[in-house]
């Protein structure tokens, strides 16, 4: 069996049975990355020495017949805004390229290391995490492994492309307004954006502190849940982490829909998308035994408020550098950041207060359903270099609007699993399965039902070398 055809639990079994060594996994993975990465432009740095050292640690455990940690020998990649000891944290920006190397791993990378994961390296993103296309003027465009002419989505485009190409079993991304869910949708894989505050963000380069989340990508729901379970943990250094107990979701996946009520989220979410996205919602709704369509009338305002908070906090963060060295900025987002820095404070505070209002309003929907279904993107992947897409009869800027269906949900801070379907033409398109705060297990279980039904399709793309 080829490495990418094995689930995380299959790797564990093979390692335990002595059928495979972690060093062999590392060697195969590094060779595949060297062969395929020039086509997709995902990795900005490969951590070969570290990966081989991590593999040696796992093989030592095997030789000594000691228990293996839950992600032992599993190759992964992280968005290049996570601190990795000994490497400069780029956040997709040339602006940071000369910064000193990180002294220590971020909290999430520490968790994955102690769980036995093998870090392959850091992957590309939209500069500053501000964009939905991963068309990065300095580090290059990350290509969609399913169609190299098309975007991978962003801002965690490298993370999604690395998994979609079958080069790693999982990756880490961040999601402020849709930066996990958009690339997961366009690249045809699963993504999890947990509840706001669930996972520690310590040691990652923030973009919008009020909205930033971290989360994993994978090609299997059980792998996604295993990684999410490993990422959990209390971190006193993250002021935004919520007080919540650890929840092990992997053992709950086989419960199916037992007790879960699913509904379609209509209105704004089924208006601002194309027929492919609506068809994907209809197929999932049938498989999840949906009878109701619910509405969130404040969705458009929620998107606007998220846009304003992002622009304002992001603009403020980069204002000193915009004054000092504007020529070093990503041209795609420089004036967008500057406009954000000039927002009147009344708009920003109104957006933050509206967030509390919208959370209360949305809460009533969970009295009627446990999981809500909505498209993750208005359409499947557009061509690299395209500036606008027509949705609902209107031309919209792709870089800012591919996340218009994800923004209202991350604004509310709700947990979402993205599930990959295919259009009639075979292009990947994803759905959001949205649950109440701290109910990640519900959206993961619904995702598992779609995976088992065969409606979801996360087969890796074969990228010719």
């Amino acid at each position, binding site marked *: 069996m080829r490495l990418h055809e094995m689930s995380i639990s299959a790797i564990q079994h093979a390692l335990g049975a002595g059928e495979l060594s972690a060093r062999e996994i590392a060697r195969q993975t590094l060779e595949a990355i060297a062969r395929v990465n020039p086509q997709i432009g995902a990795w900005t740095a490969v951590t070969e020495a570290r990966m081989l050292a991590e593999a040696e640690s796992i093989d030592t455990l095997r030789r000594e017949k000691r228990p293996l940690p839950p992600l032992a020998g599993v190759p992964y990649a992280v968005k290049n805004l996570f601190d990795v000891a000994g490497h400069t944290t780029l956040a997709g920006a040339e602006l940071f390229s000369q910064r000193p190397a990180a002294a220590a791993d971020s909290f999430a990378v520490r968790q994955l290391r102690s769980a036995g994961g093998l870090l392959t390296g850091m992957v590309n993103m939209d500069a500053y995490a501000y964009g939905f296309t991963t068309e990065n003027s300095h580090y290059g465009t990350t290509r969609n492994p399913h169609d190299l002419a098309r975007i991978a989505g962003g801002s965690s485009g490298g993370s999604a492309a690395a998994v979609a190409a079958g080069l790693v079993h999982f990756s880490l991304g961040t999601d402020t307004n849709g930066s996990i869910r958009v690339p997961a949708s366009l690249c045809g894989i699963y993504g999890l954006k947990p*509840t706001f505050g669930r996972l520690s963000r310590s040691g990652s380069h923030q973009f919008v502190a009020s909205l930033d989340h971290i989360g994993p990508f994978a090609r299997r729901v059980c792998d996604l849940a295993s990684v999410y379970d490993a990422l959990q943990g209390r971190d006193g250094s993250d002021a935004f982490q919520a007080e919540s107990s650890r929840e092990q979701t992997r053992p709950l996946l086989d419960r199916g829909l037992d007790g879960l009520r699913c509904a379609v989220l209509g209105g704004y979410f089924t208006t601002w998308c194309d027929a492919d996205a609506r068809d994907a919602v209809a197929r999932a709704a049938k498989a999840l035994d949906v009878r109701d369509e619910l509405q969130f009338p404040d969705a458009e305002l929620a998107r606007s408020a998220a846009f304003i908070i992002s622009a304002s906090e992001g603009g403020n963060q980069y204002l000193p550098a915009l004054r000092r060295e504007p020529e070093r900025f990503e041209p795609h987002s420089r*004036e*967008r950041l500057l406009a954000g820095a000039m927002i009147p404070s009344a708009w920003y505070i109104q957006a933050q207060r509206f967030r*509390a209002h919208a959370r209360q309003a949305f809460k009533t929907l969970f009295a009627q359903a446990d999981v809500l279904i909505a498209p993750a993107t208005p359409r499947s992947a557009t061509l690299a270099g395209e500036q606008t897409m027509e949705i609902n009869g209107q031309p919209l800027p792709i870089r800012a609007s591919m996340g218009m269906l994800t923004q209202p949900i991350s604004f509310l801070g709700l947990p979402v699993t993205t599930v990959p379907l295919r259009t009639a033409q075979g292009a990947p398109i994803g759905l959001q399965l949205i649950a109440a705060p*701290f109910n990640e297990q519900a959206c993961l279980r619904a995702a598992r039902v779609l995976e088992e039904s065969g409606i979801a399709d996360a087969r890796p793309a074969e990228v010719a070398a």
Partner: protein
Amino acid sequence: MTTQQPDWQAYLAQMESVLGVTLDDARRAELQVQFSRIANMAAPLMALPLDDRLEIAGVYKA
């Protein structure tokens, strides 16, 4: 009461000076495009009456 459309060009010129940013005409034009997009989003949000005791949202409590 009539509502006048704000003069965003003048506002941005003021902000350019207040924040100490130096722009050429091309960057100024792009700034106006970007700011106008945000301003269009802000208008309906600012028109929404919110309870005067409503505070900003924090993290969820489990």
